[in-house]
């Protein structure tokens, strides 16, 4: 709930204004403080691995992920006079600060708050797009996209098809913060991409860091199909890279091979890429196993060719995501690869994913598909 996550990621900040909450500071007895570490978040379950500085798109500047999103939106508002950005609390900059400064720069008719209603936000966005303008809708958390499910699945995804291409809402892009954050529990942690992967007509995209976020978001905005762009919220501040200042695009539906290897193919997207990169190093160091790490980037329509080519080479495939394993997108990849590469496989395809439960609060360290679970899966596949 509780959105608000201007400071979702930095705990204990903001001493500035303590309305009514101020007064006496808490003074706790020593016996009480002894256990404070139990309350603190565990160190992040991944180590962020920044991309190399891109050279092909002009000058770069240091940005974290939310700033790279802002930069993409800024470029769009500057170059496309029809573009509008809207959602809950976006006017003051959004609870994750992705739209900071844009209302003041481009006007409140272009960057504005909507009433609190996700079905309204997406329906409105479809309408903006049908009328030919560029619509960029923000859903405050991916967990709150479901009230808009009907507008996305029955409307946005089917507009072009059902009208015989008379009408479409290809100018619509829906952005939403996504994935686990350390203490988000059931409703601030979800990764709902698989629900939308079952929905021909929309594109679903998830970046792994600031450089990818900007290029992929600009591709989504330019793409003539409705797109959902999920932003790994744990990376908003944690991920910092040199990001090109000008507009640039990174092609949709193309997976990226981040690290070449010969023994096992590892596929993931978003935050989990950074877990995979660490696991690849662990596998090399501790097991002498050479891993090929692939960032799928676009979940729908996905890049079958790049994945299959890699599996033909390595003979093994590990797929990992935070969402529950049953019916998760790993299942789709697994079954396609099994059909395409059956004779190349040296071990059963392995999925390391969330359990088939809601996303739990205090049990998050046990729930997530962390590096140790992925590492163990590699050991099993190698010894198969």
């Amino acid at each position, binding site marked *: 709930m509780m959105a608000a996550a201007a400071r979702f990621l930095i705990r204990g900040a903001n001493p500035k204004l303590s309305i009514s909450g101020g007064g006496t500071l808490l003074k706790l007895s020593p016996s009480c403080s002894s256990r*404070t570490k139990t309350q603190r978040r565990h160190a992040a379950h991944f180590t962020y691995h920044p991309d190399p500085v891109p050279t092909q798109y002009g000058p770069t500047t240091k940005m974290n992920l939310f700033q790279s999103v802002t930069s993409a939106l800024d470029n769009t508002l500057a170059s496309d006079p029809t573009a509008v950005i809207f959602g809950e609390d976006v006017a003051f900059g959004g609870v994750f600060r992705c739209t900071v400064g844009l209302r003041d720069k481009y006007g409140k008719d272009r960057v504005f708050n909507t009433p609190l209603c996700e079905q309204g936000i997406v329906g409105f966005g479809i309408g903006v797009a049908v009328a030919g303008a560029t619509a960029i809708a923000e859903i405050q958390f991916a967990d709150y996209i479901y009230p808009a499910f009907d507008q996305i699945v029955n409307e946005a995804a089917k507009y072009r098809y059902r009208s015989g291409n008379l009408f479409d809402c290809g100018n619509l892009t829906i952005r939403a913060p996504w994935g686990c954050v350390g203490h988000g529990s059931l409703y601030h942690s979800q990764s709902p991409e698989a629900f939308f992967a079952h929905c021909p007509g929309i594109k679903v995209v998830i970046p792994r860091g600031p450089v990818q976020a900007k290029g992929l978001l600009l591709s989504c905005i330019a793409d003539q199909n409705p797109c959902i762009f999920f932003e790994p919220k744990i990376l908003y501040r944690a991920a910092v890279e040199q990001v090109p200042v000008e507009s640039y695009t990174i092609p949709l539906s193309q997976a990226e091979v981040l690290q070449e290897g010969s023994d096992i193919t590892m596929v993931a997207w978003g935050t989990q890429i950074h877990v995979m990169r660490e696991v690849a190093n662990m596998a090399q160091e501790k097991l002498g196993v050479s891993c090929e790490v692939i960032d799928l980037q676009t979940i729908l329509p996905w890049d079958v060719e790049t994945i299959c080519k890699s599996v033909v080479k390595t003979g093994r495939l590990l797929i990992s995501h935070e969402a529950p394993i049953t019916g998760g997108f790993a299942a789709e990849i697994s079954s396609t690869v099994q059909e395409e590469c059956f004779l190349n496989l040296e071990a059963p395809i392995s999925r390391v994913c969330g359990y088939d439960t809601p996303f739990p609060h205090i049990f998050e360290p046990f729930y997530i598909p962390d590096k140790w679970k992925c590492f163990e899966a590699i050991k099993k596949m190698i010894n198969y």
Partner: protein
Amino acid sequence: MNNMYRVCFHAARQAAGLKASRLLQHRAFRASAMHRQQPFDSSLEKPQFPGASAEFVDQLEFIQPNVISGIPVYRVMDRQGNIINPSQDPELSKETVLNFYQKMTLLNTMDRILYESQRQGRISFYMTNYGEEGTHIGSAAALDPSDLVFGQYREAGVLMYRGFPLDLFMAQCYANADDLGKGRQMPVHYGSKDLNFVTISSPLATQIPQAVGSAYAIKRENANRAVICYFGEGAASEGDAHAGFNFSATLECPLIFFCRNNGYAISTPTNEQYRGDGIAARGPGYGMMSIRVDGNDVFAVYNATKEARRRAVAENQPFLIEAMTYRIGHHSTSDDSSAYRSVDEVNYWDKQDHPISRLRHYMTARNWWSEDDERSWRKQSRKMVMEVFERAERRLKPNPELLFTDVYQEMTPNLNKQRESLWRHVQQYKEHYPVDLYDK
């Protein structure tokens, strides 16, 4: 024209009142004649459309959006705690009023300590109730303990009034082994089966149509119970709110919609949330009884809720209460409200129009509460909260097995397999998991 509509509006109110007294005592189902469609009669020069009644007119005129405007704010006390109209004094005993006051201030003390503890990184998140204490205690006191409560998240005082112990508030916020919700949800997502308080869920407004369904089921039980559903003025924009309002009116459900209009939904002020005269103005559109009250006047909230509750049960119809108040704290510990509102604005409500000070004025005027009482109560309540706080912090987290239970009523083979594989994994990689912090 405008006036005419206002007159109609009044007449309709009166008719509804009459009907109310006639139907009193009846709980059973009946298609009330008032609500049945008119029989078709082509001889009348009146509109015969099944969806509306009234007269034809031959002047083109749009209804003004302000047909319903300036809905008054019902209050009992002025800001200095004086009773304005003695007929409205609920005449609560000294003991009851002191209990109100102690619950409101205990809530405030608990909020301060938990807010601060989040700031120190001891709990992951918190939401304060500052400034809205009057809406919680006034409404909770007007209900029967058996009435079912569906809350949003900023109604901890309702649960406190019902007797939820401080230990359990803390256990939930700490997600420790005593948490009734088994450590699964973020802080402030309380629930209590014993106290008829349905567990809070983060997605907004989902509880609104659910409350209506429960009210319908309760009506069929004929058990002299009602349902109350709390929500913010922001949540009232969700589609679920519309569904809930419309269902409750058409299905004639004994429930109270209690809207806490505190001026903001995170950063979004009410003038970007809705046009028209607030949430209360929607009631007539749905065919529902509505009232606006001063939420910082605990007696006004009490009176309105009590009467709404009485009539909801007696007449099987929904009531909408819009309690005007102000969110004095930040939206949550993830928010910094100085980014979107002035400190002066906040200070006005904190210093000039606070529900706690208003009630204190009332008590002081009657010599029911002295400076000394205040000092010793503040000290005592703080001590109470700190004690349970320290206990809660020392307590272990729930057993990780609870990650897999309650997904379904029964443990499925699939989940059992996953549970076993986690267990084997954690045995093997013990040093990487915080197992010592959890119950075994």
